[in-house]
């Protein structure tokens, strides 16, 4: 429990502003490891809200705790790519050496062990966050030494067992053992970028209208996955009147299997910030916010230093780059562990200090966003691409990609391949080419677009009425079978936010992959919609029934029918929360058919022989079963 004076201090730092509740809670969380009931009460009195309201925000986020945590808190990534690289052994090692189990704090209060959703390190799994520092490529051996060092009281920085990673990962303000793994460079990742050169030299010649027109001409679409035309978004934002206008950079990269923004933020922060300034110029915005996911907190000091440098050079602040009346500044808001905050309206709620619950649309953020002001939310990659387009012109940009999807896309490739990492490819690249460039062999399935996308597989599925199914489950990405490996990444064929996870033939797609994805959605649902709060768990239990060998063919149809209910959810998470199961039925129906009792129509829901086994032992009799 924090002393009241300390809480007073923190609150006055944030001017007793209710909308800064996230920062207030995070500050206390850092100071003492958790937020007590008394702290929440003190905060509520000072903010003039009820304790329950403070608790509402505090209990929503994974990295904010309302019970005491350990001196060292270990958040072990539980994404599927970690599972595939030996997470189970690492987890066991942590439990053994720390002397506690996951979800708990060890007796002496030394270690807290927690599962955590994808931390964006899929190319170097298993990985964990220990006291806000990232540790990658974990093995049981390394865990043993880590725990010994922690017991000896070493600081997180002194725990590093590898050299700092390449590029800016070795920067004194980063000091992370994370590696970039940039495997293929094209127009965004090319080294020809001179920070702020467009801002310095060319922006003066542009009117805001011309910037918007140039972006519109390039046909740039949002790179977060949804693909909304960026120029149009900027135009909408510009058109709406407001006392202020807001540019938000969405760096809450939470889709499992995506880590491109991590690399962009590490290596090209200037490009992103320049993109934000240009977007502000085009839309007449004066408030800039970058929402950084908590998992990337290790980059926060570094990014703030970059912002300070920009202020010194007058690329932020008043009369930016000598342009009169162009005032704009950027603040970085740290998230606190919630996948759903990657959804733009949930992100805005979180920025306002509330639980990250998506809003109903309309109104869209461009009409009524952060604090009610017109707000433009862009993905990290979108902003970076915009600068490149403005620098070289829309015409140049049209030379890359396909007719309906211009330019390039950063792919985060992980899983069963020799070279996991970041690949910048032109739109129109086929799945087969991606497999070749990443060195993947013996592939069973590929997950395009993360769990909320769909699974695409190898085997041919001829006996299905696909057209009917596809009507309902229009994919946003997919788990792909080989039959579809010639499909192209593009907005008209396979749109994607860039997550590509590869599974070879040794993987248990249903038991390992699909179950992992369902757990992810169950954990990350905000819980507001009745559909998304309840349905994924029911579907997961049904899948478990099939995996246990108790399923009948009706169960497959139930899953398909029940999944429809999710389509009524408010946001993308809820609408796609059934996709791992639905898309795997679509592409890998044979895996389901193999596991059900194909000859029975009677649904017992359990194994009769197993259920009567114990009773039989007592009476020394084995009942006779008649199977129908």
């Amino acid at each position: 429990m924090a002393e009241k004076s300390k809480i007073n201090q923190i609150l006055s730092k944030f001017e007793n502003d209710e909308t800064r509740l996230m920062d207030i809670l995070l500050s206390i969380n850092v100071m003492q490891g958790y937020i007590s009931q008394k702290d929440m009460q003190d905060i509520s009195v000072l903010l003039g809200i009820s304790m329950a309201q403070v608790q509402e925000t505090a209990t929503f986020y994974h990295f904010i705790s309302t019970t005491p945590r350990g001196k060292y808190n270990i958040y072990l990534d539980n994404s599927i790519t970690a599972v595939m690289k030996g997470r189970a052994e690492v987890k066991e090692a942590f439990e053994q050496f720390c002397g506690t189990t996951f979800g708990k704090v060890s007796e002496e209060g030394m270690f807290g062990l927690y599962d955590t959703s994808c931390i964006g390190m899929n190319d170097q799994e298993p990985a964990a966050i220990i006291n806000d520092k990232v540790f990658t490529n974990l093995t049981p051996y390394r865990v043993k030494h880590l725990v010994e060092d922690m017991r000896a009281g070493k600081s997180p920085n002194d725990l590093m067992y590898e050299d700092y990673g390449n590029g800016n990962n070795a920067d004194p303000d980063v000091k992370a053992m994370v590696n970039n793994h940039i495997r293929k460079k094209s127009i965004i990742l090319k080294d020809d970028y001179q920070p702020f050169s467009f801002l310095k030299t060319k922006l003066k010649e542009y009117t805001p209208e011309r910037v918007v027109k140039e972006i519109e001409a390039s046909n740039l679409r949002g790179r977060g996955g949804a693909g909304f035309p960026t120029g149009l978004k900027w135009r909408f934002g510009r058109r709406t009147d407001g006392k202020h206008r807001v540019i938000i950079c969405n760096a809450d990269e939470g889709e499992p299997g995506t880590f491109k923004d991590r690399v962009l933020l590490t290596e090209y922060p200037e490009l992103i910030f320049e993109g934000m300034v240009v977007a502000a110029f085009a839309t007449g915005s004066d408030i800039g916010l970058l929402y950084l996911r908590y998992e990337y907190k290790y980059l926060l000091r570094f990014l703030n230093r970059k912002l300070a440098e920009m202020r010194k050079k007058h690329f932020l602040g008043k009369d930016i780059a000598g342009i009169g009346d162009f005032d704009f500044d950027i603040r970085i808001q740290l998230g606190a562990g919630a996948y759903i905050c990657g959804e733009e309206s949930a992100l805005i709620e979180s920025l306002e200090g509330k639980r990250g619950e998506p809003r109903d649309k309309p109104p869209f953020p461009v009409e009524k966003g952060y604090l009610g002001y017109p707000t433009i939310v862009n993905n990290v990659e979108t902003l970076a691409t915009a600068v490149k387009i403005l620098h070289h012109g829309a015409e140049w940009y049209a030379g890359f990609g396909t007719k309906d999807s211009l330019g390039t896309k950063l792919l985060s490739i992980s899983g069963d391949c020799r070279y996991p990492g970041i690949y910048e490819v032109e739109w129109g690249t086929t799945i087969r080419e991606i497999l070749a460039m990443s060195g993947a062999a013996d592939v069973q399935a590929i997950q395009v677009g993360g769990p909320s996308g769909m699974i695409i597989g190898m085997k041919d599925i001829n006996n299905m009425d696909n057209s009917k199914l596809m009507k309902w489950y229009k994919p946003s990405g997919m788990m792909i079978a080989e039959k579809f490996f010639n499909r192209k990444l593009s907005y008209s064929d396979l749109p994607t936010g860039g997550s590509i996870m590869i599974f070879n033939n040794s993987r248990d797609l249903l038991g390992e992959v699909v179950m992992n994805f369902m757990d992810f959605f169950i954990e990350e649902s905000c819980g507001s919609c009745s559909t998304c709060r309840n349905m994924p768990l029911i579907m997961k239990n049904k899948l478990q029934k099939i995996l246990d060998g108790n399923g009948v063919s009706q169960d497959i149809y139930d899953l398909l029918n029940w999944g429809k209910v999710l389509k009524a959810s408010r946001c993308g998470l809820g609408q796609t929360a059934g996709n791992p199961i639905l898309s795997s039925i679509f592409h890998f129906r044979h895996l389901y058919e193999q596991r059900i009792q194909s000859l029975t129509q009677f649904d017992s829901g359990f194994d009769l022989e197993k259920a009567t086994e114990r009773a039989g032992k007592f009476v020394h009799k084995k009942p006779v079963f008649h199977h129908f």
Partner: protein
Amino acid sequence: MENLENKIKINLDGKIIYARKGSTIVEAARENGIYIPTFCHFEGTDPKACCRICSVKINNRLMTSCTTPVTAGMEIESNTEELKDFRKSIVELLFVSGNHFCPTCEKSGNCELQALAYRFKMLVPRFPFSFPRKEADASNPKIIKEQNRCIACKRCIKTIHDEQGRHYFAYKNRGQHLEVVLDPVLGASISDALAKRAMENCPVGSILYKGKGFDQPIGTRKYDKQPIGSEIENQS
């Protein structure tokens, strides 16, 4: 003749109706004697659209009718077989994800969840019961918060607050662990009137006013006499 100024024409299930400009689809339907079921929507507060039961189809897209404003010429599907079944499944979903034992519940007959189950002729939910372990919080002097029956509709959160706008109720946790809790500090001094209103506003029996119950015999209550929605459908 009704004044059609300030009204716009919309098409609801093939029927042309006139709606007030700026009204939502739910309001427009109700004003025309057409019932669209709602849970979380509560008249006089901003809609929150968290139960999704009022979903309708516009251009083949599901939209919540409590939040979507009418526009001229809008074509809306509401009372189709598909949507009726969808709404029924939401009711069933809420039943299996809590512990709802109507015969012993003080709200029986006044409960909207129960009433909708009757309206949709629910016999056995299609989903398996989950029988979650939940507790009742009776620590407040005036209110019992029975978590087994809560459907997290947010009505109490939206409607029950003090003069300074502080909420008595709020969400806690997320996902399947989401629950609505009563503030222990602020709630300790809740007035009788407000506590009773909290119970009235709750669509189910999750918020109960302590001290006196079963005032009105079961069998004579609101939805015992006529099905939910008929007050709208039978208006002249």
